[in-house]
């Protein structure tokens, strides 16, 4: 394992301080915690937004703290959901008196730790709601199991719910719009290489020179199936058709998309995928209104990419295009 680190157990702590060095106008670290909060909190009386999860998904989630998106982000150890006391510290940092929405990716660990934090907040009189993001269509959605995982599509929840909160919507409205995003959201990813969890020191899995792992999560977990390497065109199409089918997208519908690098896959390859995506939407007569292309939800230095589609209606489209200003995502009004 070759990484630019000092010690395995100080990575997250150091990285949080480094984020503040790079984005002092955006972020501050809540003292004694693993929480990054807005440098300039939003006005009181507005709903707060908190997200978080294990580290190693940068820019998620600290990179999305700022105007129009999150109020606080809680960082766990690499790929390990944060503990309830930390989540609770995030809730307190985000609370401006109108309640706090927690954006939680659907993993057992995240769900339980955020739940315990909500119990703590409750005891403290802070009203919280949760939106569970479960956009990964590689995983079967079943009532008998934990259901689907949350992956890169989470960023659309941050953006759209964040815009609603910024506009002054109340907690139940912000939750409603966030739930609607989740109901219209589908993602799927693939890995060309594994990543190495620092505490572990070696790659979580091994892939052959001609293999690709489809349906991977964002923690270096094994995916759903291992298939031979394919072209950018085939790969984009195979992810795309799966998403379109899951969302039952039909003629004339409006969509936003995300082409997300898992870490090591360079922008040039994402751009090639984006070109195919535009052709595919044209062929299925979808109106592709927005493409987010880049590193939004990564798995350390894994090579690979994920594709996300979000069905838009007028409300989601307006909120998606509303101004926002965070380290990792800016929508500038001209």
């Amino acid at each position: 394992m070759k990484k630019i680190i000092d010690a395995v157990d100080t990575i997250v702590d150091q990285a949080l301080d480094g984020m503040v060095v790079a984005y002092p106008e955006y972020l501050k670290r809540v003292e004694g915690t693993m929480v990054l909060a807005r440098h300039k909190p939003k006005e009181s009386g507005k709903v707060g937004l908190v997200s978080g999860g294990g580290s190693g998904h940068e820019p998620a989630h600290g990179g999305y703290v700022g105007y129009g998106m999150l109020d606080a982000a809680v960082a766990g150890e690499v790929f390990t959901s944060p503990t309830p006391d930390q989540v609770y510290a995030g809730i307190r940092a985000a609370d401006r008196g109108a309640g706090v929405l927690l954006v939680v990716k659907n993993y057992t660990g995240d769900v339980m730790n955020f739940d315990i934090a909500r119990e703590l907040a409750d005891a403290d009189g802070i009203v919280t709601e949760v939106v569970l993001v479960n956009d990964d269509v590689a995983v079967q959605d079943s009532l008998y199991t934990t259901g689907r995982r949350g992956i890169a599509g989470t960023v659309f929840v941050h953006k759209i719910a964040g815009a609603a909160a910024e506009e002054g919507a109340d907690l139940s409205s912000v939750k409603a719009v966030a739930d609607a995003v989740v109901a219209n959201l589908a993602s799927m990813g693939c890995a060309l290489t594994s990543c190495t969890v620092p505490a572990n020191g070696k790659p979580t899995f091994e892939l052959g020179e001609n293999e690709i792992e489809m349906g991977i999560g964002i923690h270096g977990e094994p995916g759903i199936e291992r298939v031979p390497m394919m072209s950018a065109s085939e790969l984009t199409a195979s992810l795309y058709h799966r998403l379109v089918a899951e969302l039952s997208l039909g003629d004339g519908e409006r969509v936003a998309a995300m082409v997300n690098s898992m870490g090591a896959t360079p922008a040039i390859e994402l751009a090639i995928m984006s070109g195919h995506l535009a052709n595919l939407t044209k062929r299925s007569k979808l109106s592709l209104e927005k493409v987010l292309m880049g590193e939004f939800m990564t798995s350390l230095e894994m090579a690979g990419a994920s594709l996300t589609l979000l069905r838009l209606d007028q409300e989601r489209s307006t909120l998606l295009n509303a101004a926002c200003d965070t380290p990792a995502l800016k929508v500038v009004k001209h």
Partner: protein
Amino acid sequence: MDQVAFRQLWRRFAELVHANKTALNELDAAIGDADHGSNMDRGLGKVVEALDAGPEGSLRADAKLVGMTLMSTVGGASGALWGSGMLKFSIALPDATVVEWSGFIDALDTFVEALSKRGQAVVGDKTMMDVLLPAMTELRASAEAQESGEEIVVALAEHAKGWSDATRELMARRGRAAYLGERSIGHVDPGSVSTALWFQALADTVRAQVP
């Protein structure tokens, strides 16, 4: 069980997990995210530190310290479960330095119930509950049969190991491994292994106490 034994139990558990950290990570790598050994090891290291520094209060205070420490240092699914479960466990313990064997079993029952409620897993879901639930049944039965504490826990450690091994054949329905569906079959659940190590620690502790 007295306070010395209780603290020794956690020290021993920490030792066993530390020695098996890489193995636990590797089990988790196969069907999860490769961090279960690191998570438990990080938390138990802190538990030992906390107990070493903690005032000699009561068993309840010790168990609360264990719960709070696990809750705030382990993270992940196992941290939420062990942490919140141990807090419930502490409430069920007396505010004293000794507890009867039956009182200890009752408290453990509270612990397991809390985990069932929090995690919603049942036997066969390929989680730590595949060790904890049958272990409770066996503890209750053997206690009613008036067996000695030592005999009980030594046998239980053996059985726990077996229940953990048996998760290999299961398809996961809870936790991160559930996302793998059929691909989860053929691998032992890491949380069940660390839980079996806790029963091992319990056996080692009780055995060491009986001269």
